[in-house]
């Protein structure tokens, strides 16, 4: 029995924060690369796929309400095979988190802290996130409660402020000889929302009420809506061709906001500062997941979790700074995401199906 209990609304903030992350900077470019001006349609379909898979994931957590994902895996598949299945999760989370930190550091360096080396940027955010993870899930939930509204308002601001620059014609022609690419883009789109799996780590800490699932769906729906809106607005402002030339379309969109008066010429700095919070919460959640995975993989006790957290942090620093070229880092980040597409799509339905069968057998026995 877990002592700490998260409130159902916190499921929403945790799920939303688990999805929002470094991808918010480059989601439009990833999508436009595949589906051109119809990228938003792929993202809608990808979002629906994520909703379905998220519901499957929720059902899995619901089947074993007092266990998190690594515990569920070991319970369903046994100690050996459970750990084998856990390994890809660990590899993906560590690589994804390491490269997220890298892209965060290089984007921050480009737009805000040009003279600051990347190492202290990465170390500082890891220190803050690591400290939150050390304090436990309840502390993380509390931080999300504060940061999530700020993040959502910031993104909404970035969406609304450039409205005077939009050209609806940039969205046209809609689906003209592009259906194949739109279908291909569903996988890319779904992958922007893989944070839906966070529920499998937090459900066991949550108060179980009838409304929890609705809060979870809201937590999925908010980032899906924000990403779709962000992609739509960016296409309407810059056009699909121009987006291909932008390294961080979201930051460029924030930079394109024109506020009369010289005092607010650098309004995007506020957006960049709040964006740091978005990355912080995402890093904290991923670090928590990775910690839990490692603890179960290595069969370690919870009292040793601090060693695991700071050990992972050192590993992440190495991964984040291993690649010297910024372009190669972004390319490697994309490769990590691409390589895990099919695995991500199939793994939760597979685990849930196996979990369901196992549960039925247990009930009969």
């Amino acid at each position, binding site marked *: 029995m877990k002592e700490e209990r998260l409130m159902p609304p916190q499921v929403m903030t945790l799920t939303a924060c688990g999805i929002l992350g470094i991808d918010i900077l480059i989601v439009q470019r990833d999508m436009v690369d595949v589906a051109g001006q119809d990228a938003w349609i792929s993202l809608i379909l990808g979002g629906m796929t994520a909703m379905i898979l998220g519901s499957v994931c929720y059902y899995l957590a619901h089947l074993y309400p007092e266990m998190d994902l690594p515990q569920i895996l070991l319970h369903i598949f046994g100690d050996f095979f459970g750990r084998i299945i856990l390994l890809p999760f660990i590899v993906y989370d560590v690589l994804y988190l390491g490269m997220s930190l890298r892209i965060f550091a290089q984007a921050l360096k480009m*737009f*805000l*802290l040009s*003279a*600051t080396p990347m190492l*202290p940027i990465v170390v500082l955010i890891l220190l803050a996130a690591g400290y939150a993870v050390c304090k436990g899930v309840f502390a993380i939930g509390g931080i999300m409660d504060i940061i999530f509204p700020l993040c959502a308002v910031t993104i909404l601001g970035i969406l609304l402020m450039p409205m005077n620059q939009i050209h609806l*014609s940039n969205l046209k022609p809609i689906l003209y000889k592009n259906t194949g690419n739109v279908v291909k883009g569903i996988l890319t789109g779904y992958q922007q929302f893989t944070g839906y799996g966070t529920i499998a780590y937090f459900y066991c800490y949550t108060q179980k009420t009838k409304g929890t699932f609705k809060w979870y769906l809201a937590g999925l729906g908010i980032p899906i809506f924000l990403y779709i809106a962000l992609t739509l607005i960016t296409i309407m402002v810059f056009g699909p061709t121009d987006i291909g030339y932008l390294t961080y379309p979201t930051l460029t969109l924030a*930079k394109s906001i024109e506020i009369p008066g010289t005092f607010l010429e*650098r309004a995007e700095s506020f957006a960049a500062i709040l964006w740091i919070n978005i990355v912080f919460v995402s890093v904290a959640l991923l670090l928590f997941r990775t910690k839990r995975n490692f603890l179960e993989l290595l069969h370690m006790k919870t009292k040793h979790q601090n060693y695991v957290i700071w050990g992972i942090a050192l590993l992440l620093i190495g991964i984040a700074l291993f690649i010297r070229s910024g372009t190669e880092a972004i390319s490697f980040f994309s490769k990590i995401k691409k390589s895990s597409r099919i695995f991500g799509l199939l793994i939760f339905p597979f685990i849930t199906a196996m979990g369901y069968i196992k549960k039925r057998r247990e009930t009969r026995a």
Partner: protein
Amino acid sequence: MRHSLKRSSLLLFLIGALLLTGCWDQKDIDTRGYVLGLAIDSYPPDPQSSESTGPNQASPQEEEKLEKMQLHTGEPGYAMTIQLPILANADMPEGPGIQSAEGSQSWEITQIGNSFFSINREMASRTGLSLYYEHLQVLILSEEVARKGLINILDMFMREPEMRRGIKVLICPGEAKSILDVVPRIDKYSSVYLSGIFDNSSRDSRMVYHTNMGDVICALHDGHDFVLAKVISTKDENKASGGAVFHNGRMAGWATEMEVEAINLIRNTYEGGVITVDTPKGEEGRVAMEITNEKAEITPIVNGDQVSFRIDIKVEGDYSEDINLHTHEKLSEPFLKSLEAEYEKEIQDLCTETIESMQEKFKADVFQFDRILQAGEPAYWERMGSDWNSIYPDVGVTVHADVHIILTGI
């Protein structure tokens, strides 16, 4: 003991975070060189292509003062001038006479080279300031530079994070540097003065106010033609009226003030302005209407491989002034209707002439009909898009205007 160690560590961490955050990027405000304006001229200047824009035209002696830099490769092709505010003189009273007596409020530095990034860095060897472009207001290009093509010169402005997409890009018929040399009567800095002119776009329809870097970059990437604002100057004044027409990324010629007005009407970029017509029925008067609302709709008509366009322009405006006419008793419904018909004819003629001029003189699709075809008639565009440059000059366009006078004053 353990708790006290934890608290000390936390305190140390918090103090460290507070003291160390941003220390690498610490920069005192007085050591920054806030670049307000930037002008690019061709080097060496071509005397044939320069036309006088006012008494500030740089003399050959002044040209000699332009400093050169050693180049790794190639020959110098451009002279870049930046305008920096002299913050120590910022409190001085404004105005040209006062400035010449007390010292300048801005510093214009010119450097010659063939890469703008290296020119920028070379300038650092002359200023003692760290040049900072976040507050750059205007980028002025000479006609000669613009005719060579924008794609040659804009890369640094697209790539450098300090550059903003809202920077206004202006074209000057003569030497671009001369625009920065203007000593404005009210504002302190010519760049800020020039940038402020575009805030009046809702009052004057003859300036191109969609002239910022972001629009230029998008148009260049998408291969669309466009118009940028033209600027001319005297010693203490600028005028931003008319436009420079760009075809395939290179300047093709100048659009007149009236042509810019028509382009604004057709492209839905008309913020407000005044149109004047002679009174109908042979009376020797003139009536000015202030346009308060304008909406144009461009419809492509595709018939096999043939394409034409219909432009419907809906205009609402206020009866603002009549000249040589006493109309207070004459503002009857029939009179206003006949006046509306005159405005409709004026707008139709102006737009038709401008379209023909752009087609014949410059072959420049500044109305972005190509964009409308790409979006609305993708099948046609797929077949004929590659030949658009040869199709466009002969495309038939009909213009229909619908004018309504709303208010007539007191």
